[in-house]
């Protein structure tokens, strides 16, 4: 169930994260800052989406509609009213997404399960086709431009004219989105912990009984739908100046699917899951797109793998462990074997990814293989962390930590000292041979292992 942490512990967990995000521009480059700004905007959308999925038990396949409504509203306000103040644009986007989600929600909440999902999908595609066909209003497939440096923030206090406008925009806008994100997350946290939020969870658990304790199920679903739509609309509004352009693509159903995926990826049963999922998904997608023109293949494979091994999502994995983790964490010998296997995979995938770079392979195959291998390596590393977290006795296995850290460290050091990539890769690959030996040395005798398991 969604986390039941009290306010102080939630704030205690949130403050360091916010502080780290606030300090980020000191360390990260302009490109990373932009990526995270995108991620934060998507996180607001996922947060809104998850009020429906995680807390009310309704799976919407049409949240692109509200994101797109927010985005197009900002574009219309800029083009037709000549207003470039971000605050006024956001206000407009909130109102328009409220109206659209109130209308669509009124129709959709009369149904649940697949019927609800199909209705949300169908209605969102109505908006998409409007944006697509009425090109004299919406710009059609060309979309509408909202120049990044044209907007003003904080009622005109900050504008982006003159030299270095683009850089100033990226940094200012990052803080702007971060501030709104923090406020939005706080508001959502209060909503899900309010009596209203409890009522939504009750509806999710048992609609019939919710009615019999006097909750007006349909009305509450509708209100949740509207809040959800408004959050997503806000995300769309923040996204536009960043992207510089809005096209019908943000109204199209695959984008609804991406919002679903962000939330499932992070874990829809926890409050922070959707936000973590949005940031992670954004990174995955960006790197997949950069790797090859067949980026959907890369992204799809990674997402399938993640859902298979971590059905409860990235954040959910630290709560209720997936079955394979709880089995592996329960027995010493299984734990040792599973962690060694993961380490092996980690190095294997790292080596493959480095190898494709080192020998200078190019083209789609190298792009796909290299990126897939890198993502698989990151996933293996993450699974190892999850496993150790649930075993809770990492100190017993200090050698494991050392084994995990030494080769990548050696690799990084050799790269940093200017060794050729091929040499470093060879060093990394060589460490693979150590593993059968480590495996043999560290495993308890077979008899013991069997008894342990």
């Amino acid at each position, binding site marked *: 169930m969604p986390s039941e942490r009290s*306010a102080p512990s939630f704030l205690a967990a949130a403050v360091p994260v916010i502080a780290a995000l606030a300090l980020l521009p000191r360390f990260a480059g302009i490109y990373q800052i932009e990526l995270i700004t995108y991620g934060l905007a998507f996180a607001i959308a996922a947060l809104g989406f998850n009020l429906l999925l995680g807390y009310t038990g309704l799976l919407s396949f049409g949240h692109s509609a509200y994101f797109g409504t927010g985005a197009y509203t900002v574009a219309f306000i800029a083009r037709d009213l000549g207003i470039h103040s971000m605050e006024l644009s956001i206000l407009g986007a909130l109102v328009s997404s409220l109206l659209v989600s109130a209308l669509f929600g009124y129709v959709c909440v009369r149904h649940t399960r697949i019927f609800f999902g199909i209705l949300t999908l169908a209605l969102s595609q109505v908006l998409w086709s409007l944006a697509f066909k009425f090109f004299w209003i919406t710009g059609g497939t060309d979309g509408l431009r909202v120049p990044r440096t044209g907007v003003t923030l904080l009622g005109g206090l900050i504008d982006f004219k003159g030299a270095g406008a683009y850089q100033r925009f990226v940094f200012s806008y990052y803080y702007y989105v971060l501030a709104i994100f923090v406020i939005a997350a706080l508001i959502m946290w209060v909503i899900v912990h*309010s009596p209203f939020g409890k*009522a939504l969870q009750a509806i999710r658990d048992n609609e*019939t009984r919710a009615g*019999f*304790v006097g909750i007006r199920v349909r009305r509450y679903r509708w209100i949740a739908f509207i809040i959800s739509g408004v959050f997503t609309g806000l995300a769309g509004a923040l996204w536009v100046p960043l992207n510089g352009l809005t096209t019908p693509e943000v109204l199209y159903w695959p984008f609804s699917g991406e919002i679903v995926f962000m939330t499932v990826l992070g874990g829809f049963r926890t409050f922070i899951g959707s936000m973590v999922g949005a940031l992670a998904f954004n990174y995955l997608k960006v790197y997949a797109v950069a790797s090859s023109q067949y980026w959907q293949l890369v992204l799809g494979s990674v997402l399938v793998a993640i859902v298979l091994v971590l059905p409860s999502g990235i954040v959910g994995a630290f709560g209720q462990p997936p079955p394979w983790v709880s089995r592996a964490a329960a027995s010493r010998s299984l734990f040792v074997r599973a962690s060694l296997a993961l380490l092996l995979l980690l190095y294997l995938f790292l080596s493959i990814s480095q190898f494709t770079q080192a020998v200078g392979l190019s083209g789609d195959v190298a792009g796909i293989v290299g990126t897939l291998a890198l993502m698989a390596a990151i996933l293996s590393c993450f699974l190892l962390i999850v496993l150790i977290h649930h075993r809770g006795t990492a100190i017993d296995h200090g050698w494991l930590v050392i084994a995990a850290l030494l080769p990548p460290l050696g690799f990084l050091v050799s790269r940093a000292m200017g060794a050729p990539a091929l040499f470093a890769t060879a060093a990394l690959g060589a460490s693979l041979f150590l593993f059968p030996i480590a495996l043999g040395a560290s495993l308890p005798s077979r008899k013991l292992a069997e008894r342990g398991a």
Partner: protein
Amino acid sequence: MAILETIGLKRYFGETRAVDNVSLRVEEGEFVSLVGPNGAGKTSLINVITAHLKAGSGRILFQGKDITNASVTERVRLGIARSFQIVNVFDDLSTFDNVALAIFSRQGKTAHLGALAHRDKAVIDEADGILGQFGLTGKRDDDARDLAQGERKLLDVALAYAMKPKLLFLDEPTSGVSTRNKAQIMDTIAQVVRGQGITAVIVEHDMDVVFKYSDRIVVMAQGAVMAQGTPDEIRGNDQVAMTLLGTSGPDAFGQGSFPQKG
């Protein structure tokens, strides 16, 4: 004045007459037991009165007011609450949150989006009080799905009780519970309900329980009311003994309990 009155209430499922022309009065403050063999229409009658099922025909009056077409939530707001034969609670919420939710709802606070539920001292105290009354304090923070069957039954009743109803329907509050726990659960329920002067209608198969706690017993068979009266009147009714036990005579009910369902 009768708190509840049904007039010629009917509900058929095809050929099956689940509720067949039931005219029933329940007086304020009564503890009424609804008994009858499986399929007699006891649960269907409760479902129709609480709007879980639509009435086919007939009228339902609550405190003299016609509620035949009122929705579930409207009837709940008027003061009709119920528990379920098959446990119907919020499995993913804690025991405490289950009860607290019912209180929030009763007080109209579920419309509040900007208040923190865990800061509402009055509701917390009341919910803890109810958990205490039902002996669930020890399971306060467990998810409802992790409770034992008997505890889940009690939680189901506690949810209905937390609505502070005027009229409370309890559909087999002890079914699926071991005989040992049964008396304890019934004692708890009877004590709480009588203590608050709540009018209660209870479906029960255990005739010892029925005779012990009821002011009045209503016997149903094939969707219709077959007999009603005080425990003593019902005990002496040969026709009822035949229907319920398949045997009659002065000692029929003394020989043990009614056959259990499930």
